[in-house]
């Protein structure tokens, strides 16, 4: 198992290199640059700025410098929009906040989604099934951009239970975590239901019943553990997506997370930030998928890695 993990981690290096080359090439291929302004800057000023950020060098050299700085100094370069701030500082300041929000949202998703899916599966085609799946359809169909303001309106403005926005106090974390987690809970709920429905019709469940095991033991020990495999598969990318920052929810609740950098760095052509955020996401995705693969081995004893 350890060898497998080390091998997977080593594979990350060529994957990240490939991603960095493609991202670097694409971000420079798109028309427009970091110094295009509504008020057009004189070419002399642009030349000074390009020199300051090293953009006056040939592209291949810019790329090599970038990778060199990461390898030797773990330096992801400067932001071209916020003078004096580096990508490392942006990560340090905002990633922990996005990660907190993401983990809380994932908890919300699991706490709502899994019971919802189980109940819907066990009570298939009953009122509970329809209710559960109705909630799931609502969760999937109502986008964050609607759900966020709706939650603010009900729970902050009308009822006054929570503050409108911000981050730091526990009371400020409730609404954004729900807004972010509800959509994912719907996905998890539907997936759990489908998976459970499949598993409870398996032979080994019938065997367990025949052995006279209690329904609770059958469901928790036998059915749920196996039904969780497809759920675990989606949890990997979901974890990466939620913890690296989500633009809409962070924007609506004025949370100083990473989400906005994924969007604004592209619109601003803030090259180092585009590269940094993409690589960050890639690292999270690869590691989360690795974690999922490891989880499989625990969930299903037949799965073994060498």
């Amino acid at each position, binding site marked *: 198992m350890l060898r497998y993990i080390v091998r997977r981690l080593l594979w990350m290096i060529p994957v990240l290199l490939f991603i960095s080359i493609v991202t670097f090439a694409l971000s420079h291929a798109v028309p427009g640059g970091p110094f295009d302004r509504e*008020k057009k*800057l004189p070419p002399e000023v642009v030349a*000074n700025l390009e*020199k300051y950020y090293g953009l006056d060098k040939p592209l291949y050299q810019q790329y090599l410098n970038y990778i060199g700085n990461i390898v030797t100094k773990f330096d992801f370069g400067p932001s071209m929009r916020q003078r004096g701030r580096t990508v490392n500082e942006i990560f340090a300041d905002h990633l922990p906040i996005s990660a907190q929000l993401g983990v809380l949202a994932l908890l919300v998703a699991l706490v709502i989604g899994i019971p919802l899916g189980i109940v819907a599966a066990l009570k298939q085609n009953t009122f509970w099934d329809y209710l559960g799946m109705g909630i799931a359809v609502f969760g999937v169909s109502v986008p964050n951009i609607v759900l966020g303001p709706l939650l603010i309106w009900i729970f902050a403005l009308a009822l006054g239970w929570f*503050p409108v926005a911000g981050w730091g106090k526990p009371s400020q974390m409730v609404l954004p975590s729900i807004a972010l987690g509800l959509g994912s809970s719907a996905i998890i709920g539907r997936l759990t239901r489908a998976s459970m429905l499949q598993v409870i019709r398996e032979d080994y469940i019938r065997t367990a019943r025949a052995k006279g095991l209690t329904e609770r033991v059958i469901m928790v020990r036998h059915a749920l553990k196996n039904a969780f495999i497809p759920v675990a598969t989606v949890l990997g990318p979901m974890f990466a997506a939620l913890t690296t920052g989500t633009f809409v929810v962070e924007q609506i609740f*004025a949370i100083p997370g990473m989400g906005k950098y994924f969007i604004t760095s592209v*619109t601003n052509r803030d090259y180092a930030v585009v590269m940094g955020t993409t690589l960050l996401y890639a690292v999270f995705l690869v590691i989360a998928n690795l974690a999922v693969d490891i989880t499989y081995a625990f969930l299903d004893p037949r799965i073994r890695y060498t």
Partner: protein
Amino acid sequence: MNKKFVLVSLLVVVAMLVSACGGGGEKLAKSINLNLGTEPPTLDPGLATDTTSVQCDELLFLGLTDFDDKTLETIPELATKWEVSPDGLTWTFYMRKDVVWVHYDPATKKVTEKGPVTAYDIEYGVKRTLDPVTASDYAYVDYIIKNGQKFNTGEITDANEVGVKALDAYTIQFTLEKPAGYFAGIAGMWVNRPVPREPIEKFGDKWTEPGNIWTNGPYMLETWEHENKMVMVKNPKFFNAKNVSIETINWAMVVEESTAFAMYENGELDVCGVPSADLDRVRADPVLSKELYTAPYLCTYYYGFNNTKPPFDNKLVRQAFSMTIDRKKLVETVLKGGQKPAKTFACPGIFGSPAEDPNFPEIPFDPAKAKQLLAEAGYPDGKGLPEITLMYNTSEGHKRIAEFIQQGWKEHLGVEVKLANQEWAVYLKTVHGPDTPQIYRLGWCADYPDENNWVLEVFHPTLGSNDIKWNNAEFARLTEEAAAASDPAKRKELYFQAEKILVHDEAAIAPIYYYVRVVCTKPYVERTYAPLGGEHIDKWKVKAH
């Protein structure tokens, strides 16, 4: 006995009144909660380009001059007076002697005086802005200073050749490349503010962080949590500190307008811009409508014509298109935010702008005349026109405006105009590049309230960005002459003529509307409005609430 009782009662009442009034003054709160709207990209005055950074710098750093919020006239700030040589090339500013640098330690809350703000700090600041190593976006503003451009482009390397010199500790002299009647305003701009050499050299790019920064304005920086919040506290060493009422400014950085407005309604913010989607509701609300204020904002929304691309190489076509835009209806039915239909490029409030001059003609909405002009141009009923594209940067708002105007051209001129949009950075490349679209939208906001910042810097064939690819010798002459002239009346007259050529005679562009800011302010806040941005919060008061 009775008299005694009355006398004692009276005394008690008077004593109660006096104590209630706190010695006759009104009770004031000491802090205010505001929204910056976004993270300021920098607090370094030499590097600031955007309204958020400028807002912060306005409170932290003084300039030689400032602009009066009401009249927009250039008024003294760090300078007490200034004089100009007869040839208009040498400007000498005499400075206050009671302004000091302060360092604030957020951990101990200790304020340390760091010596007087002198002319040497200004000389250092200007040269630093122009130094190519600093790579300041707005260095070009100082190209008017002698050798400013040469130093910024590396053509000369000796900073001492730049036309700025401290004659003594409190006298600073600028020598210009050519006369510029508007220079007093430029001298006070953020890029020319005094900056402290010691922390800059010690901390490099990090000199603006709390604990590192030295400031000289009415406020000091206590907290800057990036993307989250900023706290400024009153500078007790500020020369006018006794008149600064608000002691703490809590800045939120809420980007989403609707969230910020919900915070305002929830009492978490004291002042807030009103999102356009909420305007109708706010206007109808008995409480909010009283807190609403529509303030001018020195920006103009316009459509530029590429004057070299057919059919807009023909002024008759440009005139016809411009006078088929129903600006009034656009403002009333599409924008609905209190904007004003534009008749000039430079908006009201800008020195030299004829926007409020009754003698300056409106751009008429006259479809009949437009049709006639189009026929005269050789395109009766729009027949024979090449394909026309109107381009804007991708945004719902710009799209709605473009569709309204497109519909008008179709209805009144019979011309089918194609709409196209591009993502912002791509769009800027297209508009600023050699292949500017036939019609494009842009906005222009004042850096300083003078027509030079508008007509010359934007549309002069060689000195401006001139995206419209327009080369009108008379317009160029007028704007150059107005820039150099020192007599305000003469300058106004020249700008009147230049604007007339730009929007009427040649219709090189079609100005559409003047921006406004729609703001709600809680009734307990007594405030001013700065049309240029950079609110003077040191002049505000918050009543106890």
